[in-house]
């Protein structure tokens, strides 16, 4: 059980995503998850062991480390990646629900002309329209919120994205203001900036995808109103024919029920 499981969950959503969404998934797994697992965890591996304070007072190092690093960078990144990937589960659940309903209608005999068998329903690529459009858009919105929140939390917790090589600590039980030295500050700063940049790119991709979806809907609506304007008579004739058909069917039913028993 590891990041591969998350990849399997999210990979399933890939089929129903837009092209920008597919690029986003690739960026997440290659430039963030893989970097985290392959490199960042090694860099932060000995972070507390090699955090050294210029004092022999027992407990001073623990307390200072806890004060400057309430949550480790890699744990925060891991949580950020998990939270940012989970809105895609909403889309996966919606698609699964849609397929379940379609399969139920197929078994009842309703959609036989659209699909050959149940396997066909499972393989079908679901289009992003209707209620799925709303689910997909909400998932992108939540992704943006989570990315922005975690970036802010990072900035707030560590006073920026740069790690200094020395920190001054005067918390009890440290006897006075002591110097504490972080291990590998430059390497950690490089990786922090890399992960933050990848985060910004992912956020920009999400914003672009949101704009694309909104534009697509506006374009579709304007096309519909245009066709209605160009062929108003045709539209009017159609609606009148529909009304006639309804009247005929209603009167037919009344004729049957009105038969004396």
């Amino acid at each position, binding site marked *: *059980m590891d990041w591969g*499981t998350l990849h399997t969950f999210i990979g399933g959503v890939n089929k129903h995503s837009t092209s920008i969404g597919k690029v986003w998934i690739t960026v997440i797994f290659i430039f963030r998850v893989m970097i985290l697992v392959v490199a960042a965890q090694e860099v932060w591996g000995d972070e507390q062991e090699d955090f050294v304070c210029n004092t022999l007072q027992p407990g001073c190092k*623990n307390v200072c480390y806890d004060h400057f690093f309430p949550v480790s960078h890699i*744990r925060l990144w891991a949580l950020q990646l998990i939270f940012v990937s989970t809105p895609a589960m909403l889309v996966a659940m919606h698609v699964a629900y849609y397929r379940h309903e379609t399969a139920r209608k197929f078994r009842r005999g309703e959609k036989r002309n659209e699909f050959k068998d149940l396997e066909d329903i499972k393989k079908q690529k679901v289009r992003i329209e209707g209620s799925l459009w709303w689910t997909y858009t909400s998932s992108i919105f939540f992704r943006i919120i989570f990315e922005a929140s975690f970036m802010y939390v990072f900035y707030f917790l560590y006073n920026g994205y740069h790690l200094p090589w020395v920190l001054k600590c005067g918390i009890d039980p440290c006897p006075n203001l002591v110097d504490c030295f972080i291990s590998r500050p430059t390497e950690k700063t490089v990786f922090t900036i890399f992960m933050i940049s990848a985060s910004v790119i992912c956020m920009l991709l999400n914003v672009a995808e949101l704009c694309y979806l909104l534009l697509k809907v506006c374009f579709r609506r304007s096309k519909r109103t245009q066709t209605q304007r160009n062929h108003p008579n045709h539209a009017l004739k159609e609606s009148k024919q529909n009304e006639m058909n309804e009247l005929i069917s209603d009167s037919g039913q009344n004729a049957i029920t009105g038969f004396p028993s």
Partner: protein
Amino acid sequence: MSWIFLRDLLTGVNKYSTGIGRIWLAVVFIFRLLVYIVAAEHVWKDEQKEFECNVKQPGCENVCFDHFFPISQVRLWALQLIMVSTPSLLVVLHVAYREGREKRHRKKLYVSPAMMDGGLWYTYLISLIVKTGFEIGFLVLFYKLYNGFSVPYLMKCALKPCPNTVDCFISKPTEKTIFILFLVITSCLCIVLNFIELSFLVLKCLITCCLQKYSKRLKSSACECHDLRYVECGVIAAPPLLQNCRSDLAIGASQRGETKPLF
């Protein structure tokens, strides 16, 4: 044998769960199991090595650590995950039992072995109650063992062989508190999901029973109406109408037989 084994077992449960059950599984997999493996486990990795007491007396640190952490929080978390996931296997076992029974008798005994009716409905209900019981039990245990859900940075220890009351410092207390709070919140979310699923199942069953009783009453009143008509209209229409009434009753009985298997 690792967490992958549990994951594979639980993936099988997904097929026989309700919609809310699947949400519960997703929450357990992603927010509990995955977070535990990729993050939480590493936070507690060096807990005893970095546990430091302000004393040079040999053995004092060991004794104090053992007193304050009889069982490590991360191990308790792992136990909770295992105990909470396993009642779902009862459902898998029951479905496997039904399938085995159908094979042995070489005929169709159930509408579908995985359909939640009769005995399987009770098994699912029991698994939900046991799961919720374990969740609440472990939360109470956590609270009682560690006097709350927060980890202090300093603990005072005066056990032998420590010469007096010494200060003992825990490593990464804030990070540990954050992850324990995360565990508590996800646990509470799972409890809420279990309660919702339980209520949904019970309500669905009550509604189905009420509807069945109502349709039975309608059918019996329709049969009485047909009998009365037979008396009014005469002999000609009698046998087919009576047959219709009897066949309705027969259909009702056979339907009841299909939807409520004994086990």
